């Protein structure tokens, strides 16, 4: 075990990777927020992202471009989320069970196609895969310290932060957003003004699929350009914890995503110091439990301050 000096761990490079590793979680979180606000807690984010990752790679090889891969991923994820929506909204299946079954199905399907379509086992990596390239932002990249943090990321990293703002804008500043949120918070109010609540729920699920496509594409076409079995590694669940922590609001949820990204990055960094990978890789998952713990403490404290005239706790959880 090498010299564990805090300075050598907490480098700018670490924070830069934290941003990069938060990106897929941010996408999944934003997607999940959309459908949570219509009243559907989407536990299928994990599987949707995995499908996105697979088809991004497949599409990249087929079209010879990263954006082509993104397109394939978007189509695949929209199909899957449409399936989810039809099963739940038309055939009246239980959404939690459908979401979980979808994850299992996604693992099965991607593993199957890995062998049946791409003719490999475990990992698919070839030079045919075209990934995204990092973007250097002129001028900014010359700022000391901050420059290394902000410039030089993959385009989807920047887009993930932009998407947080877009989601905020749509949900809290547009009529559409108000109507959508009413469906999840007080469906009578939405119905009474003629909102088509079923349509809104469809939108919620399709948008989560769309975001998962971005998240999955980022996983397999950026830092790593490959597809490996179950490569989403639980990020879909981390997204749920982030949504819970942020009480379905984009910016507070983003905070949790950044913490998870940091935990991921730290785990990688600590391995370079000789700590055993198995132990260190527990970090993101332990972090998730800690984040849930903290939001529970905050919730308890929030109730105790009877002077605070805040909004009603709009919590969303399945149990």
């Amino acid at each position: 075990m090498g010299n564990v000096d805090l300075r050598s761990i907490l480098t700018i490079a670490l924070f830069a990777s934290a941003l990069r590793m938060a990106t897929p979680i941010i996408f999944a979180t934003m997607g999940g927020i959309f459908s949570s606000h219509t009243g559907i807690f989407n536990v299928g984010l994990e599987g949707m992202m995995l499908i996105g990752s697979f088809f991004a790679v497949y599409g990249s090889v087929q079209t010879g471009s990263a954006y082509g891969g993104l397109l394939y991923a978007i189509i695949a994820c929209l199909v899957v989320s449409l399936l989810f929506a039809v099963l739940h909204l038309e055939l009246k299946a239980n959404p939690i069970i459908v979401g979980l079954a979808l994850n299992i199905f996604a693992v099965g399907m991607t593993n199957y196609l890995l062998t049946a379509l791409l003719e490999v086992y475990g990992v698919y990596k070839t030079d045919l895969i075209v990934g995204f390239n990092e973007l250097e932002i002129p001028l900014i990249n010359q700022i000391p310290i901050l420059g290394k943090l902000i410039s030089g990321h993959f385009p989807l990293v920047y887009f993930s932060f932009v998407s947080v703002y877009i989601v905020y804008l749509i949900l809290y500043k547009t009529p559409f957003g108000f109507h959508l949120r009413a469906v999840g918070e007080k469906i009578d109010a939405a119905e009474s003004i003629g909102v088509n609540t079923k349509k809104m729920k469809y939108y919620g699920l399709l948008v989560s699929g769309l975001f998962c496509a971005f998240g999955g594409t980022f996983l397999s076409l950026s830092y790593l350009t490959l597809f490996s079995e179950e490569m989403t590694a639980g990020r879909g669940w981390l997204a749920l914890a982030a949504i819970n922590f942020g009480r379905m609001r984009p910016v507070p949820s983003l905070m949790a995503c950044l913490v998870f990204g940091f935990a991921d990055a730290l785990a990688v960094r600590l391995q370079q110091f000789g700590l055993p990978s198995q132990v260190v890789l527990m970090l993101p998952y332990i972090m998730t439990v800690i984040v849930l713990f903290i939001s529970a403490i905050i919730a308890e404290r929030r109730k105790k301050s009877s002077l605070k005239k805040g909004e009603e706790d709009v919590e969303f959880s399945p149990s």
Partner: protein
Amino acid sequence: MVLKKELMNKKQNNHAWREKLTNILAQFANYLLILIIALVIGALVMYLSGRDPISAYGALWEGAFGNGYRFADTLDRSTIMILAGIAGSIAFRTNIINLGLEGQLYIGAFTAAWVGFTFTNLPSIVHIPLCIIAGILGGALWTLPVLYLKLRWKIPELVPTLMLNYIAIRLTDYLIAFPFRDPTAPMAGSPLVAASARLPKLIKGSTINIGFIIAIVLIFISYWFIFKTKVGYEMRMVGLNQDFAAAAGLPVKKSIILAMLMSGGIIGLGGALMILGFFGRFLGGFSSGYGWDGFMIAIVAQNHPFAVFPAALFFGALANGALTMQSVTGVPQAVVAMVKGTLVLFVTVKIFLENIRKGLKKWVM
């Protein structure tokens, strides 16, 4: 007057009997329908990727039931499925969303293995039960953090149980990579358990062992427990309506704790039986998602122990047959996961059942 009342009673009984029959037939037809859908979807995927579904399914069947030994192997594979299914059922019946079966399986398997390879001078009659108890305790104790978070901090168990899966797998990976590493193992694994800890086989030429008997016995025990005991009643009521249970004075906290511990303990038992009966040591990655099979089986069986058996058998057949299918026709085993997933996707669709029931009613009544 008396005759009229008797006739009325008879009519009512007749009506009730016909209604029950309709319901049972409808359920059966519904299951058949979604099974067919699942198999068709699997076939479709195979066909679209240039494989022959007929020969694939044929090989699957052959592999699972082709001869006596294969059938016995299928039963052996079903052992873990039964235990996982019951573990899931007990939790879900109490409205506990325990998605941590996989992690509890790993921990239980490891603790059982540990007792198996650490103590070498015990007679089988002592060693095996000791290992099994260790497995049960391991699985059960792994649910304690989730219970704490749920009961003290009101954190729903869905995400914590999932997180503990990843933590358990990495923890046990670490344990067999460093402190308990066995360099002679073919893949990352613990030392072999002592011969005294191995489960006696039932049929020569097959891997089936007394673990299967234990699983069957557990089916009956869990049926009795859930439906015939006081604690079972409490857990069922808490699962159906926790507010009602609390207002009626039922011990809600105790039921939640018991359900979670039992769930973890039973699949921990499953892990123990896998190590002692099949693998002989704790192997990294030994589980091909049995915890998730447990979840799926419980859902498909609607949390009823007697329904767990056929579902577990089906899953065991898929698992066993898939090996043959892959080696003979080259169709990857993963197609089986798709079939299972599809089954669960459709199993909570109520519309099929309603329409089937309506149709049958016209016919039966």
